[in-house]
């Protein structure tokens, strides 16, 4: 099976101080990989390195067989890497609809300012409204008027409008009601099966993450300390006790 994402010996950090130490990771296309670990383990840093927000000092990241090298974040988006950051990144001053349109605005380029090219984008936005009806009711409201859960829906929906092949999600369940968490997880699973979307899912909500993931990695102090089949990780009592706290 071909791996959509291959990470080898990735070392990265902030201001020359490494936070990640030699991370290895392989994620097959169309699967969900849960990234677990305590606060400060380096999960967010890993996602930031994958989407080009920070530059790895050593190591290799390959996406769909091609080395990503030094590609800037904007270019990685065009390759198909979508990143929903920690804290969601809803733009407070833009309306819900504008936030959603922005998710796919890069596809329009310089042309398509009017009319036809926008129609495709509008269709994608309409699909998001179907997935998350509460957003449709608030399409003209500015982002800062949304509740936490609505922001989460907006951030996820906005990423989907960009039609990513790899979706990096940083704690999407944070602050959501259990029922909405379950719905979100089910939706991710469905997207993977129907559209071969690949997801790297950072979660504190270990149980629900492992329940939909195909595989998982557990990080501690910037290293991968366990990796494998999601069900096996969930059943490993020692691992749960040492790193996952349940």
């Amino acid at each position, binding site marked *: 099976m071909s791996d959509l994402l291959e990470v080898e010996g990735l070392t990265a950090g902030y201001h020359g101080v490494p936070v990640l130490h030699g991370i290895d990771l392989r994620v097959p296309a169309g699967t969900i990989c849960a990234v677990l670990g305590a606060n400060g383990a380096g999960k967010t840093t890993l996602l930031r390195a994958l989407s080009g927000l920070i530059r790895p000092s050593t190591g290799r990241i390959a996406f769909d067989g091609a080395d990503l090298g030094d590609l*800037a974040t*904007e270019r990685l988006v065009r390759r198909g890497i979508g990143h929903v*950051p920690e804290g969601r*990144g*809803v*733009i*407070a001053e833009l309306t819900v609809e504008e936030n959603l349109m922005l998710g796919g605005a890069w596809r329009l380029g310089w042309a*398509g300012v009017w009319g036809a090219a926008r129609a495709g984008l509008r269709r994608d936005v309409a699909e998001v409204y179907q997935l998350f009806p509460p957003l449709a009711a608030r399409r003209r409201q500015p982002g800062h008027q949304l509740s936490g859960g609505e922001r989460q829906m907006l951030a996820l929906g906005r990423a989907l409008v960009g039609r990513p092949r790899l979706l990096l999600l940083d704690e999407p369940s944070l602050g959501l009601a259990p029922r909405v968490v379950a719905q979100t997880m089910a939706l991710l699973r469905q997207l993977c099966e129907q559209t071969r979307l690949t997801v790297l899912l950072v979660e504190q909500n270990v149980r629900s993450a492992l329940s939909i993931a195909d595989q998982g990695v557990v990080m501690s102090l910037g290293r991968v300390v366990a990796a494998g089949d999601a069900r096996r990780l969930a059943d490993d009592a020692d691992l749960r006790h040492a790193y996952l706290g349940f």
Partner: protein
Amino acid sequence: MDRFLFLTVDGLTHGAVYSAFALALVLIWRGTRIVNFAQGVLAVATSYLAYTVTGRSGSYWLGFLAALLAGLVLGAVVERLVMHRVAGAPPLNAVIVALGLVLVVQGVLGMIYGNQYLPFPAPFDRSAMTVGGVPLVSRFDLFVFGTVVLLMIVLALLFTRTAIGLRMRAAAFAPSVARLLGVRVGRMLTLGWALAALVGALAGMLVIPTGLGLHPTAMDTVFVSAFTAVVVGGLDSPAGAVVGGMLVGLVLSYVAGYLGAGTAPLAVLALLVVVLLVRPAGLFSGPQARRV
């Protein structure tokens, strides 16, 4: 009463230009948190180009077009070559660099064109047409109004109805999030400067024919008025810039008309001080939207 009407129209005409110029300041402020102190001198430079092109070709409108295009290019060049380097540095750096740019450009223009006032033609008759027996508004005034209104409509459509405008706003509000959504933030900033300089160039073409003529410092007082306008309206608010510009235009016109031309600059300063004391964020800055 006739005099009041006349002063009102005159104030609004100048105010329209201040609004446009203020809008250019807001454009750059929103994208970069820089007050572009070089904006006046850039508009002067493009007006000199228009002067040359019009002189050579005999066509006012060719010069007009050249000024707008030059504004677009000049704005982009200044951002790429100069202001880009002070982005992220302490704010004072950008101010000092911009003021340096003012001195350099004024010096160069003085060397090329000399430091005397050059006559700068208006494309339309500047004598007032009588409305109901009262000399009120000239064809040129109408041209100024029409152009500024058109400009505002075009800018509003650009920012609210087009994908490029959406990306520019996103880049200004939340650059790091915008980048994650594929927006080329650097390009949007360059485009913002180009647009602002184009608007500035347009304002120059509208206001210089109403003054003493073309001179390296011809836009200095316009800059001060527009700066007051954005302080009045709030640096973040395009609508505030428009209203602020009109307000400053009216105040200047009434004060100069009733108290004598010499007092007008003082009135602008007084307005500036009062607004800063009463509402430092500007009259039109809404409740600060919290970033998440």
